[in-house]
């Protein structure tokens, strides 16, 4: 097992890279939860609604644990969670907008949530102690998400051509921003690999493609041919744009701000 990371020994760029990594994982988890929560009352069956409610809760639990890690890099999580504007979110661009149909959220729970799990897996195997000790529980919970995602993906892929088409279009739309996020190989990402904090973007992308190859083939999408979006913003650790304002108001808890008791 690799020796634990001593954050005191990281230089300025190293601390900034760790801060960026934690934040983009936390923000993406929070937005994944928001997107699941969009469907609490709109799922095609009450069982699916209950399942996606539970998944939304899980994602927010993961976000809570990840935001808490920011204390290790001298960032106060409370302000990060409750006071930032949408433009400062570093979540994967695939989650910026609500999904218009059930096939869209099924594609997201497959294509996006799996990418988050692959990124967390790399993080959990690195030298950062908080990730080693907290992320395995998240990954254990994610196994249920992946199971439900695969079941629904297969179900829709095997149904009508119209439904399969919606799933295909959503998959094609989500893959480029996800591949850009997971495969980012900029200076900060390289620092994290050199410091042994996470796996290389190349290896994570290979794992990701392998995990989804057979599934996306069901809707005639060859994941090996999918390409990442351009326009990567190194400072924000994401592609262009930002989450819609309604989602951020919910993520920040604006409506119930007076009740914030943390």
């Amino acid at each position, binding site marked *: 097992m690799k020796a634990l990371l001593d954050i005191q020994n990281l230089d300025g760029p190293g601390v900034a890279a760790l801060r960026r990594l934690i934040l983009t994982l936390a923000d993406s988890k929070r937005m994944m939860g928001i997107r699941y929560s969009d469907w609490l009352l709109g799922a095609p069956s009450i069982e699916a609604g209950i399942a996606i409610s539970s998944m939304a809760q899980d994602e927010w639990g993961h976000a809570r644990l990840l935001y808490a890690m920011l204390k290790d890099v001298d960032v106060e999580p409370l302000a990060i969670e409750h006071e930032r504007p949408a433009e400062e979110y570093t979540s994967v661009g695939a989650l910026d907008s609500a999904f218009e149909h059930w096939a869209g959220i099924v594609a997201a729970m497959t294509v996006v949530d799996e990418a988050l799990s692959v990124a967390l897996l790399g993080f959990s195997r690195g030298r950062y102690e908080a990730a080693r000790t907290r992320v395995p*529980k998240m990954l254990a919970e994610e196994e249920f998400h992946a199971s439900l995602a695969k079941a629904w993906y297969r179900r829709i892929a095997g149904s009508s051509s119209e439904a399969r088409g919606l799933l295909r279009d959503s998959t094609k739309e989500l893959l480029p921003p996800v591949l850009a996020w997971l495969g980012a190989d900029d200076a900060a990402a390289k620092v994290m690999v050199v410091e042994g904090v996470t796996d290389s973007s190349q290896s994570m992308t290979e794992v990701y493609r392998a995990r989804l190859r057979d599934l996306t083939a069901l809707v005639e999408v060859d994941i090996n041919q999918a390409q990442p979006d351009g326009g990567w913003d190194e400072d924000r650790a994401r592609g262009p744009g930002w989450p819609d304002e309604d989602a951020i108001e919910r993520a920040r808890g604006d409506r119930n701000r007076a009740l914030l008791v943390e």
Partner: protein
Amino acid sequence: MPTLTTTDRGLDKGLPGRISTHKSGGRDLWTGPLKELPADRTKAIWAALDEVLDPELPISLVELGLIYDVELIDEIARVQVTFTSTACPCIEFIRDDLIDRLEIEPWINKVEIIEVWDPPWTTERVTSAGRAKLGQLGVGV
């Protein structure tokens, strides 16, 4: 020392026979403070924590396997606790119940709750006593 107050509002009337309380952490069932200083204070902490019920299941947090470790140093009790899920909605209730139960004891000056996630909790951590109680309620683990 904090004052333990319980108000009987009749909430427990009509409960199934095997469930004895609705009060947070099973507060009306708590014993203590101990009349004599315990010889083995760590063991006494475990026993006290074994009185604190999970908010959702009528077995103790110890029986549920959520307490990973306890230690007492200079009258400060440190309790390592995990939760069944990362988004457990009862985290704050559980923390308060743990602290309130231990602070009843005059030989404990302060309680520190340390949230841990390693190893991840699974149903394998439920004790045999906990399994037996859950089994009586028709809950299989």
